[in-house]
């Protein structure tokens, strides 16, 4: 059972403070959190900080342990971070990319255990047919899937996926959500996922974290967090939040508002 607790976090990008006063109630295991907000609000900086790749001030506890005090090995066992960029197009084949992602940081696992883990992740994501293709010969979307495989192969309990579906078509988008959701539920993990497709987030996430103007604008279940008012404040968009036939909120954007108020 994982618990993530973020207290009083402030993030800077160079000398400029991007997000401040990030205080969230404890996020319980089994939760998918959609991280929303306009371009440049700091979603990726937030992810990088949680992943231990970027600097921050404040405290982040995973299962009661301060993330900053964890060793590289501990952290790579618990946290899986998918960067926003796609894996580089090199002559590495997909299988090697995933294998090395695991073996580079988990010298404690035996070769056969790692092989089984890699085997499983290729099956789960449905990309077995890509295993022996060079990354340079894969499409953007296919490389994104390999990147995701590199992250979830270690079965981390905290998944930080920065726009994991940005290069994917509809079918693969749904596939990724299915896999991530079942992984999160199965292992009682937590997933934080910045994403630009608001409706995808509203449909699949349990909680929505909405950033705007240097801080948290809303945090809660989709129907509570995404209101027409919040849409206006965060995205500068006039729109409607309707409810679809399955009872999920659905955003229809209508007009862009000027940035100055």
């Amino acid at each position: 059972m994982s618990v993530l607790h973020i207290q009083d976090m402030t993030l800077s990008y160079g000398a400029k403070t991007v997000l401040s006063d990030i205080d969230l109630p404890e996020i319980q295991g089994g939760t998918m959190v959609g991280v929303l907000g306009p371009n440049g609000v700091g979603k990726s900086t937030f992810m990088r900080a949680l992943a231990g790749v970027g600097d921050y001030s404040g405290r982040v506890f995973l299962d009661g342990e301060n993330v900053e005090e964890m060793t590289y090995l501990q952290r790579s066992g618990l946290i899986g971070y998918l960067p926003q960029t796609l894996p580089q197009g090199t002559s590495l084949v997909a299988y090697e990319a995933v294998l090395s992602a695991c073996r580079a940081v988990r010298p404690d696992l035996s070769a056969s255990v790692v092989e089984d883990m890699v085997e499983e992740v290729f099956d789960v994501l449905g990309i077995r047919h890509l295993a022996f293709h060079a990354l340079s010969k894969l499409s953007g979307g296919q490389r994104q899937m390999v990147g995701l495989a590199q992250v979830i192969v270690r079965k981390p309990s905290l998944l930080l996926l920065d726009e994991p579906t940005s290069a994917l078509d509809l079918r693969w988008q749904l596939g990724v959500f299915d896999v991530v959701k079942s992984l999160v539920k199965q292992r009682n993990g937590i997933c934080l996922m910045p994403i630009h497709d608001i409706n995808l987030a509203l449909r699949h996430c349990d909680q929505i974290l909405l950033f705007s103007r240097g801080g948290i604008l809303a945090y809660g279940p989709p129907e509570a967090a995404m209101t027409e008012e919040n849409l206006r404040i965060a995205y500068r968009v006039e729109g409607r939040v309707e409810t679809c036939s399955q009872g999920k909120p659905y955003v229809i954007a209508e007009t862009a508002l000027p940035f100055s108020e």
Partner: protein
Amino acid sequence: MSAKTTLAADYRRLMLHRMIWLGLMFCVLVFIVMLNVSIGPAKLSFGQIVTGVFNSSSLTDNENLILWQLRLPYALMAVCVGACLGLAGAEMQTVLNNPLASPTTLGVMHAATFGASLAIVFKFIPFGLPENYVVPFCAFTGAIGAVLFIQYFSKRFGATVDTVILVGIAMFFALEAMISLIQFVADSDSLQQMVFWTMGSLARATWEKVGIVFLVFAICLPFSIRQVWKMTALRGGEEYAKSFGVSVERLRLIVLFRVSVMTAVAVAFTGVIGFVGLVGPHISRLAFGEDHRFYLPGAALAGAFILAGASILSKTIVPGILIPDGIVTALIGIPLFLGLLINQKRRGK
């Protein structure tokens, strides 16, 4: 691929394939070395050489001298220096994430040339070293000085690819200017020696020098092997490697240091041999992909192969004259490299 086989089994088959190719490459290298040893003005047949290596009493004293003191060190020096430069280039290309990188990129060779030039022109003899070690020692010291400067600078201002490359390039030009300055003040005799040094030659090889280069290679190799997975992971992109928990900047500094020491030792004894470190890794990448368990040994073998081949040509193009190996390396390396590249593009791989 049938549904029954596992990916791991398929991958093992691919690895076996690669291992066979590595083995073949090694055999070809051994053959080339033997060929290299058998070529020269004194007419020794291939058969005589082979028996002579295993049974020195089968040759006359004179022939033994030629075989053991001239030909073998020369041929083995080509292998050791080529392997060092190939491995160094491969690691350099990975940590700088740039296929144009080579052991020359960060000015290590220029720094070595600078050190050598100082020794040649000002004729100072540090620590009463034996004469034929003065130039190598100064070249090595120059190169290590450059490396330490880059390390210090990168540690201080963040060892990102950009920082490291920019500092390297700045140093490259500064050293070039200083070398020109030394050339400007040098007398014509020293100038000739300096120019000869920059052409790179294996002719000064002795068993001692071969031993030193081999030892450095043998010491560095296990460290390279220890980091193969991190290096392979790095090929997927720096952001990704960091996200898995690889401390990329630390890795970069460690690898750069190792690579520079290997390069410095190799070129200290031979002079500038630039091309091997750029092309060796490319050949290895075409043949073995970028799983560093195969890519690194492949690059070392390819480097050794190129330099060994070049050293044969440098003896045979104009019989009786040893054309500097640095020149021949580039002349045979470029068509070989372009041929491979064109072939690869044609097959659309």
